[in-house]
């Protein structure tokens, strides 16, 4: 089993290629890998409960761990109470801990 960390920086409502990340992350999870998606920058805009059409619930249902950068959330005025279930506010320090684990592959998108 490998660890995959996807760092999603893109706004899914601006670019459809975030679909690539969803398909890849879910497939890797189905192959028994540990998969985390870390949302950063405009990637956190999909976190809001009212973000109709967000791809994040699908990832959560597939068992992909979802973390959102607290700095990016703060910049965009997104409070924890507004966030879709299954997404945990996190930090760059936590991302670095994930990256520093052995047998981890990091993919920026």
């Amino acid at each position, binding site marked *: 089993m490998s660890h995959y960390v996807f*760092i999603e*920086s*893109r706004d899914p409502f601006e670019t459809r290629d975030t679909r690539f990340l969803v398909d890849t992350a879910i497939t890797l999870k189905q192959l028994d890998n540990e998969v985390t998606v870390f949302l*950063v*920058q*405009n990637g956190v805009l999909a976190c809001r409960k009212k973000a109709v059409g967000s791809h994040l619930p699908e990832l959560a249902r597939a068992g992909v761990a979802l973390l959102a*950068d607290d*700095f990016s959330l703060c910049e965009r005025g997104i409070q924890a109470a507004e966030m879709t279930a299954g997404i945990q506010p996190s930090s*760059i*320090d936590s*991302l*670095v*801990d994930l*990256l*520093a*684990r*052995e047998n*981890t*592959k*990091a993919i*920026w998108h």
Partner: protein
Amino acid sequence: MHNKTLTLALMDPPYESANSTTALRIVASALSKGINVNVFAYEGAVNLAFKDQAPHANPVKGTTVEEEDHPTTKNFVASLLELGKGDPLLTWVNCGLCVDERGAANSVDGVKRGGPADFFKMAQESTATLVIPTK
């Protein structure tokens, strides 16, 4: 964490993308945890460390250079190199051809000149490698 090394490849020029801010945050966090960091700056990212960057006043608000206290990426890079000058170690390599194209040879102290082969070697010897491309 002292036996760990993280390598980042950066491509965005300064003042263009939030990618630069996030990348510098990752470098700062890793160094604070005692993780060695390699940065390979490619294409426009070689200008992140360009020494001739100057803070400016804000004529719209009528503020002076001092009042505006405008942050420059060269100062961020210099601070990170100071933080990573020993153990942990920050190694910052600018792509030489990218530097020459942009006339950006005057970098802050501690920045090295290299090429993609250096990035390959860094990646081979690292715990993890993160490539942050332009969109």
